[in-house]
């Protein structure tokens, strides 16, 4: 799809908070999901006749199921602390992209129908009727939230806009207004097993090709096994890892780590996708159905551990939700947390001196690290607080000689989203994606200028895909984004055992 021309934001040396421009991105809305994809997910195919009542019923239902939604709709003080925290606001200047502005789209309707003052004094408390215009605003602006939770970190009440945008998407889906990108993808996973719709034979073929490539390069038979029963480890990784640069370099790296550590592992064609887009649309039922594939694969392949590859929101669903959605995992080896992140595996092996590195193999790169939002703000690694920040950095330091962090206000729990998360990584939202990438690009530019940084490592398929576009858009090279396990794979000394 051709992207409409839009004004390109300027990369400034120091980011500033723009003055607001009302409705600046009201025109941005992703393509709507067609009937067949809606119905396969259990939603109506088009806007239902009594959609107002149905939407309010759904809202009432969610208010009883999610404490977060209820407490967050009640508790906002409208203090404004979040107003300059969202990358989409900073990039688009649209006040409905301020976290509180986005929340208020739903909150004003909640107040109108579910609170006493809103019923009797709507104007006083900013309550509004649920009209078609409001529904259209919901569709636009709840698809301009990447659910990255940066606002939730800064909010004095801990209000998480992601919870509200997930609820809004679930309400819209339930009245027949769904987003094409997410719902088509979820349909593909339900049917085939992964986001790319890659069936088992194609997957086997791809992995075989990968083995040949690695053999050609380092003359060692590193295996990338598929559906190998009784393996110790089931690796669940985003399907992007099977295909595109720079993702596939990460997968090559995981394989090298397993090979060198002598671990038996396998991929699964049934659970050939780590990503769980059910979270993006706020659908517990769909999220659970997707997560169950992983449980089924683990049982079927009789593995002892589950390890996830580099994928941000997949790791959120894995770390924070998998035990809830598809647990208990009492059939797995209790010595290991369920599930584990590939970075935890690699880090542990480094600590045990199982892996040795020749850092000079990465000397052509000066590296910085992008904390992916869902890893940074919705999960952890290891068993210490903040492990999700230290473990990836420790791996980078173990595998490279040149590492510099970006500005403190843009990393770790304060990290900026890449601009493509939360189900927005679709061409029909390209303007939003490019504008939303602005804060990260500005932070990157500073370390490029100050330290000569050449590459940015990430551990998220969405981040990697998004940056492949955004880097080019802002005048960098698109191959400056790399997988963290590419660094590992490059520097790993593979012949140690033979020595």
């Amino acid at each position, binding site marked *: 799809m051709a992207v409409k021309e839009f004004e390109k934001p300027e990369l400034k040396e120091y980011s500033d908070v723009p003055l607001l421009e009302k409705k600046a991105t009201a025109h941005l809305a992703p393509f709507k999901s067609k009937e067949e994809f809606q119905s396969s997910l259990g939603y109506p195919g088009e806007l239902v006749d009594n959609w107002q009542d149905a939407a309010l019923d759904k809202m009432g239902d969610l208010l009883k199921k999610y404490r977060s939604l209820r407490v*967050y709709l009640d508790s906002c003080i409208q203090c404004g*602390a979040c107003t300059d925290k969202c990358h989409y606001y900073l990039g688009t200047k649209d006040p409905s992209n301020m976290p509180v502005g986005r929340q208020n789209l739903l909150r004003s309707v909640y107040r109108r129908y579910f609170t006493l003052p809103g019923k009797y004094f709507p104007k006083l408390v900013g309550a509004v009727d649920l009209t078609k215009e409001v529904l259209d605003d919901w569709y636009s602006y709840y698809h301009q939230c990447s659910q990255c939770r940066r606002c939730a970190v800064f909010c004095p009440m*801990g*209000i998480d806009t992601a919870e509200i945008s997930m609820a809004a998407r679930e309400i819209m889906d339930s009245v027949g207004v769904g987003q094409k990108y997410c719902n088509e993808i979820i349909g593909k996973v339900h049917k085939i097993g992964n986001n790319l719709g890659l069936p088992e034979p194609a997957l086997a073929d791809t992995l075989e090709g990968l083995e040949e490539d690695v053999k050609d390069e380092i003359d060692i038979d590193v295996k990338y096994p598929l559906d190998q029963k009784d393996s110790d480890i089931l690796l669940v990784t985003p399907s992007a890892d099977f295909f595109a640069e720079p993702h596939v370099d990460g997968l090559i790296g995981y394989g090298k780590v397993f090979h060198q550590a002598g671990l038996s592992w396998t991929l699964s064609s049934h659970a050939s996708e780590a990503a769980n887009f059910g979270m993006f649309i706020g659908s517990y039922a769909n999220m*659970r159905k997707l997560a169950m594939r992983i449980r089924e694969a683990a049982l079927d392949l009789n593995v002892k551990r589950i390890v996830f590859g580099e994928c941000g929101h997949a790791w959120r669903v894995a770390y924070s939700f998998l035990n809830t959605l598809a647990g208990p995992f009492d059939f797995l080896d209790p010595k290991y*947390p369920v599930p584990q992140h590939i970075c935890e595996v690699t880090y542990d092996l480094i600590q045990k001196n199982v892996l040795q590195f020749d850092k000079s193999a990465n000397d052509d790169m000066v590296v910085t690290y992008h904390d992916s939002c869902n890893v940074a703000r919705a999960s952890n690694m290891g068993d210490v*607080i903040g492990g999700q920040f230290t473990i990836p950095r420790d791996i980078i330091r173990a595998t490279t000689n040149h590492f510099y962090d970006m500005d403190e206000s843009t990393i*770790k729990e304060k990290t900026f989203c890449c601009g493509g998360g939360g189900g927005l990584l679709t061409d029909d939202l390209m303007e939003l994606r490019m504008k939303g990438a602005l804060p990260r690009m500005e932070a990157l530019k500073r370390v490029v200028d100050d330290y000569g940084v050449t590459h940015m490592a990430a551990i998220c398929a969405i981040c990697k895909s998004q940056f492949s576009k955004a880097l080019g858009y802002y005048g960098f090279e698109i191959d400056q984004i790399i997988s963290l396990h590419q660094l590992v794979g490059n520097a790993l000394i593979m012949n140690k055992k033979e020595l």
Partner: protein
Amino acid sequence: MSLVTIIYGSLFYFATLILFAGIAYRIYEYATIPAPLKIPTPPAPKTKRGVAVRLFREVVFFESLFHSAKWTWLFGWLFHFALLLAFFRHLRYATDPVWFWVSWEIVQAAGHYAAYMMLLGLLGLLVRRIFVDRVRHISAPSDYLILFLIIGIALSGLLMKWYPTDIFALKQFILGLIYFNWSELPSDFMLLLHLGLVLLLMIIFPYSKLLHAPGLFFSPTRNQTDTARDSRHIADWARKLES
């Protein structure tokens, strides 16, 4: 018994009922709605004790707000802390004999100067609401009115220094309400204004954004432990999906 006494006395009972029953009901609602997923934000504690420490820091120091918006933090914290000090000072009107620590000079003096601090904080918040374009954009009439209401309470309270009332009679009135043995309320304008605004605040509390006070304790991003992998966290309605 004067009409003013009857009206204010009745309103006090009414407002107290709304405030306490209203907040109790909200807390009941918040406590009984399940949080089906683990969503704590970093740095997320691993233990309940850690959660208690985290909430203590949020409630006492407004830690997240400090990292987020320094001016809002400064004015907001000044206001809330002044409110606490003023509350302590006012306990002398409702305790008999006056609790020993309430009668301490430092508690009384701090409570007095707190009025200035409170006004400073509130005016700061008001100025921010009016002049920062992002905050002005999100402000509903009720956001200004609540600020004006509390400014009115602070100002009328402070002005009683220059428009004094019979505080002995006032205390008899308050104690009379507590022990169901009513006595006359002095009918000085500034006192009636001050009490009237406080009553209004009590009544709107459970129906307004003032619910942020109980809400913070039920915020899953702040009150959950980071233990998703260690033990299975599941809501009753979600468990039903499994059968």
